[in-house]
């Protein structure tokens, strides 16, 4: 990634964070911690890697994205709005009655959302199904999936992991947002995940682990995944919950928290121009 490209993607990540903080503050409460921790990933995907068409969100040759940790929807909505999938004014309707931007992703409500998620553990199975269907259609699109570390407690992920390896679903490029915090405490306190990359490798995946806030590293990891033709890829992102948001960075309790407009203004100012 060139320095100018890095600057552009980092600026986009900052924009995603600002928009996300703003929409959650508009409502007063939301899943901010896990939204902040994937902002850099979303910036790389939507500013560079993911083939998508705002004006034709269901185009056959687009890359697919399943945000299995569906509660991080607000960060994805920020990216989609910034790229023109829907009007930016929608962002202020987050979670309000009748909105098209619900707390958890809904493929029928929001342009650019490929799969309805929210009941944790289900997204990777859907991604496998999408990849199987694309293979039948000889469609070379990439299927991106993002799962949470707390979500990794769900056994269905590991059913899908074995399936994707068995079927050699190399079109799947998945990410684990390893921010080491879940609702009731740190992952080490609740269900320790240990060497997550080793687990995925043992399940037959091409597994990498990188700094999940380094947009250059994320971009490079995705690049290497494209060269692996016989296995799905899992990129474990070492992240910080609440990253980049002054009032919650590194706080375990930021999974779902109250956010006032004053807190938001301070956090947005701290992010800088």
């Amino acid at each position, binding site marked *: 990634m060139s320095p100018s490209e890095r600057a552009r993607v980092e600026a986009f990540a900052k924009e995603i964070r600002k928009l996300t903080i703003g929409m959650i503050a508009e409502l007063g409460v939301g899943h901010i911690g896990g939204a902040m921790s994937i902002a850099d990933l979303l910036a790389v995907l939507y500013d560079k890697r993911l083939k998508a068409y705002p004006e034709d969100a269901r185009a056959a040759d687009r890359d697919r994205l399943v945000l299995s940790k569906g509660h991080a929807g607000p960060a994805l909505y920020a990216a989609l709005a910034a790229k023109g999938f829907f009007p930016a004014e929608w962002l202020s309707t987050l979670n309000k009655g009748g909105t098209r931007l619900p707390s958890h992703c809904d493929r029928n409500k929001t342009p650019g959302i490929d799969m*309805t998620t929210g009941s944790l553990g289900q997204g990777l199975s859907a991604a496998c199904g999408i990849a*199987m269907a694309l293979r039948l259609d000889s469609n070379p699109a990439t299927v991106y999936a993002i799962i949470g570390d707390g979500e990794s407690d769900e056994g*269905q992920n590991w059913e899908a992991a074995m399936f994707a390896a068995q079927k050699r679903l190399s079109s799947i490029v998945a990410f684990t947002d390893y921010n080491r915090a879940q609702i009731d405490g740190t992952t080490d306190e609740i269900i320790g995940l240990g060497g997550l990359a080793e687990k995925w490798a043992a399940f037959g995946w091409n597994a990498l682990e990188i700094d999940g806030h380094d947009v250059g590293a994320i971009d490079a990891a995705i690049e290497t995944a494209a060269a692996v033709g016989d296995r799905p890829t899992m990129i474990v992102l070492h992240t910080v919950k609440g990253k980049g948001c002054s009032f919650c960075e590194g706080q375990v309790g930021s999974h779902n928290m109250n956010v006032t407009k004053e807190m938001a203004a301070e956090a947005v100012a701290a992010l800088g121009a």
Partner: protein
Amino acid sequence: MRAVYAETLVRLGAADDRIVVLEADLMKATGTGPFAKAYPERTVNVGVAEANMVGIAAGMSAEGKIPFAATFACFASRRAYDQFFVSGNYARLNVKLVGTDPGVCAAFNGGTHMPFEDLALMRAVPGLVIVEPSDPVSLAAFVQKAAERDGCVYLRLQRKAAPALYKEGETFDFGKAKLLRAGSPDGKADAVIVALGALMAGEALKAADLLAAEGKKIAVIDALSLKPLDEELILEWAAKTGRVVTCENHQKRGALGSAVAEAIAESGVPCKFARVGVDDEFGEVGTQDWLADRFRLTAPHIVAAIKGL
């Protein structure tokens, strides 16, 4: 019946390459081998992982495929309920979930495998279409209808052979029951039995025969479509006869008996009413015949229910 399921899928699959079959290590039981042989690339065996199977089916349908995913009804409902609910139905996707070996048909697999509650669970899913075909002709028709419908379907499938109740060419639809027997040629009857599924339709006809020998005229309705339910036909016969007995290979609570009771209560049609079904019990092992009697699902129990009205 399972041969009909497989044959129908092979036929549909020849005409439409969007049809895909998913199995969770029960292909030998479901009998979809012929489909796998004809269309190996469109057959997906996920191993012993029903939740994953339903999620994969949902993902495939998001890309326009028409997945038929089958497993024992106990696993299709209890094991993969949230996946079917959220990834399939809530996501407005297009998963055809097939639950085999319903109720006492689970026989020697016993209580762990004996779904007396799958229909009650499925009935609570908004907009879900639920059918239990009663013979080979209705099975083939409803598999085709399921493929044609844009939306999820739960199809309850008795694998073992069932006698034909309908002639080839008979037409079926969701929300439509069939009058299997009018009480008498002039359309009069002393009571109506509403039955669901092959096993219970057969027992209902036997019960009607037993009562006919005593001079009683009994009408029999084959419900077929639990949701939507053919309330019009059922209420018509409730009004005509004033006596209604439902029978199902399932708990009395939550499925056919409940649905018919709700329809009658809300319609204001005056009639007497009884349910034949499993009375708040778990399943156990035995032959299907022994279990059907043990859980009071057979013709004599239906006769007793009618006489008790």
